[in-house]
């Protein structure tokens, strides 16, 4: 590239420098461009592949979203400007797909009655109701059958109890068949003009076969034949009948009619409901229930107060201990720091919810290690008494959480310029003053946001409560399944996943309220710490 190699004049040096720059720039450009092309190629390949699959499935809405996103992503990386988008897109894509979707979904669910007995569509509920309303006719026989295909319709070729063969399909009730071939056991297996389905045929058409209902006779009171295995058929009568035209469910015995009254289940005039029902939109009624329901308000407030106490104390205690230890170890003269640090990090190295289980054993009143060995056989009801259980939860959370604060404080302390404290030392400040006036404020700048997000994390610290106390001890005097160490999120869990009356919609409403509370408190916290401003 650089041809002339004469004595270095100033001009030449400048040229050389420039050339070097261009060369290195070009090489990195090509390198980064290659990486960029490969990565984008992968992304495009993936989306092209999914586009084909989506087209095959005829899912045009998702297809257009995928195509649009791909075009936007390519545009972002091929245009010269728009640096911000280039740096933010990778993270934002994952965020949008997984986090935001979950939030949107929960929000949607919060406005429905999704829960026990209301967890599918109306169509599915109808088919479930019909499915489970089939009653075998008392004392009726079990019939040997073969499935035969005559023309295009499937038929049951039935061997009657006395040995004669009858045939019938969904449209034509059972009737005598002219002639039928029988096997050694006397079962009719085929009839002229029809082909018998082999077991493999049965398997490939099992949906069709198991949904067949062959009337015993022209009188519907005689019931229908139905098979579950393709070899034997039993006589059933349906307890419920769905009238699609009028959209009503009719009990064939009592003649009671059940209507779709808009409550997500077929309901009779007398108010009794058929279950399963289906999921419907209930507007803001879940939210209203959180705030207005008498029996919920008491426990809700009690739990809210404890949740705030729990998260504030947890953050404070872990931070104080973590910072203290970081300060203690922030001394290069101290020997064996690596060993201490490794031990101190151990609580963090064990999966937290597993440690919580172990702590439950340690805190056992009569047999636990803490009462039996450490405290020489006293009976302290750590997890039995409401007040002590709260203390126990806080201690365990301190154990679980201080290594994080220790790590973070350790890192932050390193970033504080040493000369600042040295200058102060020169000015005659003592260690405490240096800490309070110089280190701590600086530390807080970088750590305050972490404290706030740690508050948010503890606010939703489900694993600890679930594994350690499961919310207990339960207050036997309230009606709600809420214990004295339950925090909001563990209460939400109980509403959504425990018991016979699981109310996912209500739980979602709760979680949105929790989210708003946490987000508002945190946003205020960020404002107050002014950390965003200071760091600019």
């Amino acid at each position, binding site marked *: 590239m650089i041809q002339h190699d004469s004595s270095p004049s100033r001009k030449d040096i400048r040229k050389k420098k420039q050339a070097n*720059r261009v060369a290195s*720039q070009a090489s990195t*450009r090509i390198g980064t461009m290659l990486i960029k092309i490969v990565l984008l190629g992968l992304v495009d390949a993936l989306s092209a592949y999914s586009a084909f699959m989506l087209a095959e*499935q005829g899912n045009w809405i998702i297809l257009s979203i995928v195509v649009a996103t791909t075009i936007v992503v390519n545009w972002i990386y091929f245009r010269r400007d728009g*640096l*911000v988008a280039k*740096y933010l897109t990778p*993270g*934002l894509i*994952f*965020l949008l797909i*997984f986090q935001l979707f*979950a939030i949107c979904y*929960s929000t949607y*669910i919060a406005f429905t009655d999704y829960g026990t007995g209301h967890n599918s569509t109306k169509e599915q509920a109808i088919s479930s109701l019909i499915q489970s309303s089939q009653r075998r006719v008392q004392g009726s026989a079990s019939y040997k059958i073969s499935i035969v295909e005559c023309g295009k319709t499937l038929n049951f070729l039935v061997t009657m109890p006395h040995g004669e063969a009858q045939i019938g399909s969904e449209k034509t009730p059972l009737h005598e068949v002219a002639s039928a071939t029988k096997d050694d056991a006397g079962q009719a297996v085929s009839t002229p003009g029809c082909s018998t389905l082999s077991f493999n045929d049965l398997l490939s058409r099992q949906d069709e076969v198991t949904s067949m209902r062959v009337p015993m006779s022209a009188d519907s009171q005689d019931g229908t034949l139905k098979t579950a295995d393709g070899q034997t058929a039993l006589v059933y009568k349906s307890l419920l009948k769905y009238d699609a035209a009028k959209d009503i469910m009719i009990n064939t015995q009592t003649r009671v009619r059940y209507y779709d009254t808009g409550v997500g289940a077929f309901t009779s005039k007398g108010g009794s409901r058929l279950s399963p029902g289906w999921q419907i939109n209930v507007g803001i009624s879940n939210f209203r229930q959180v705030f207005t329901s008498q029996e919920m308000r008491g426990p809700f407030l009690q739990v809210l107060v404890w949740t705030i106490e729990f998260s504030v104390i947890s953050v404070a205690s872990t931070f104080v201990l973590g910072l203290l*230890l970081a300060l*203690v170890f922030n*001394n290069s*003269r101290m020997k*064996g720091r*690596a060993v*201490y640090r490794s*031990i*101190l990090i*151990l609580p*963090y190295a*064990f*999966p937290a*919810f*597993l*440690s919580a289980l*172990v*702590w439950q*054993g*340690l805190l056992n009143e009569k047999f636990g*290690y803490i009462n039996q060995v450490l405290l020489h056989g006293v009976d302290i009801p750590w997890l039995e008494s409401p007040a002590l259980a709260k203390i126990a939860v806080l201690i365990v959370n301190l154990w679980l959480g201080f290594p994080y604060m220790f*790590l973070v404080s350790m890192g932050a302390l390193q*970033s504080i*310029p040493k*000369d*600042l404290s*040295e200058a102060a*030392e*020169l000015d005659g400040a003592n260690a405490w003053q240096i800490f309070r006036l110089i280190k701590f404020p600086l530390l807080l700048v*970088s750590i305050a*946001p*972490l404290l706030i*997000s740690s508050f*948010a994390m503890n606010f*939703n610290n*489900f*694993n600890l409560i679930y594994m350690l106390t499961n919310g207990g001890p339960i207050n036997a005097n309230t009606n709600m399944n809420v214990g004295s160490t339950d925090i909001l*999120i563990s209460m939400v869990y109980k509403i959504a996943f425990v018991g016979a009356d699981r109310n996912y919609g209500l739980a979602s409403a709760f*979680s949105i309220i929790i*989210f708003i509370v*946490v*987000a508002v408190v*945190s946003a205020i916290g960020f404002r107050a710490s002014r*950390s*965003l401003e200071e760091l600019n």
Partner: protein
Amino acid sequence: MRNTIVERSAQRITESGSNSAESKTQKSSPRFFQFARWFRRTGWRHCVAVVACCFAGFPILYILSASLNQQGTLMSANNLFSHVAIDNYIQLFHLPEQPYGDWYINTIVIGLSTAISSVVVGALAAYAFSRLRFAGRRVGLLALILLQMFPQILSIVAIYLLLTNIGYIVPALGIDSQLALICVYLGGALGTNTYLMYGFFNTVPKEIDEAAKIDGAGHARIFFTIILPLVTPILAVIALLSFIGTVSEYAVASTVLVAPQKQTLAVGLYAFVSQQFSQNWGLFSAGAVLAAVPVVIFFLFLQRYIVSGLTAGSVK
């Protein structure tokens, strides 16, 4: 400039101070005073450290003792190390229905992939927030953090439905795919971690970028070759935090990973004690002890970056 002067003078003073102290102690009863001085400077630190280590370590010792005890119940470990046998550890690798070895490898692979990807994705975003000026920057940063505060317990159902549907289109990213699990974890990569990095990026003076820019370096080059090396400590911290977070995550992993040989340690280990009628604390403890090993090794490996990587001078 001022700082270096201060530093130099400070150094002089501490040197002279320590000299005088030494000469004093040599005069009278050297051993006691040496000890006292040692205690005042670093000795008390050891006392605090030992107390803290006891607090941190005794439950761990308890788990260790239970893991060496064959009885299979947790309380039988009360007499620490009354039985010592490694049967539990051996048995752990010979359970056909509970492939512990697979869980172990899965956990490390998923943990490391998530950690590295989170660091890359988070650092990219942190750089944008720190160096580029755009509308909605502050609000955007705050929104990222706040979004991560959505209670996760109820997202599980949403994530299940989402992955099921993705699985219809791209089977490799559906339910029971470890890649899908990593993607879900990356959904949380922008958040607190980004914020932590953002703070550190800000401590790197802008003059460095500008100088590089004048030299003709592109933004990608500045980012990868100049900025990233300067913020190694925080990258190490984030990698460690996200590794630990992934290793101990249970709820999402247990929903996404179905087949036992695809699961992670947290999911598999919990099954040892979740059934009231077939709890096996011995196996559980042995499994938990081994599970902690990679985290500790990873920590030891990253420790020097975390603690000594960021000296104030190099950044100024």
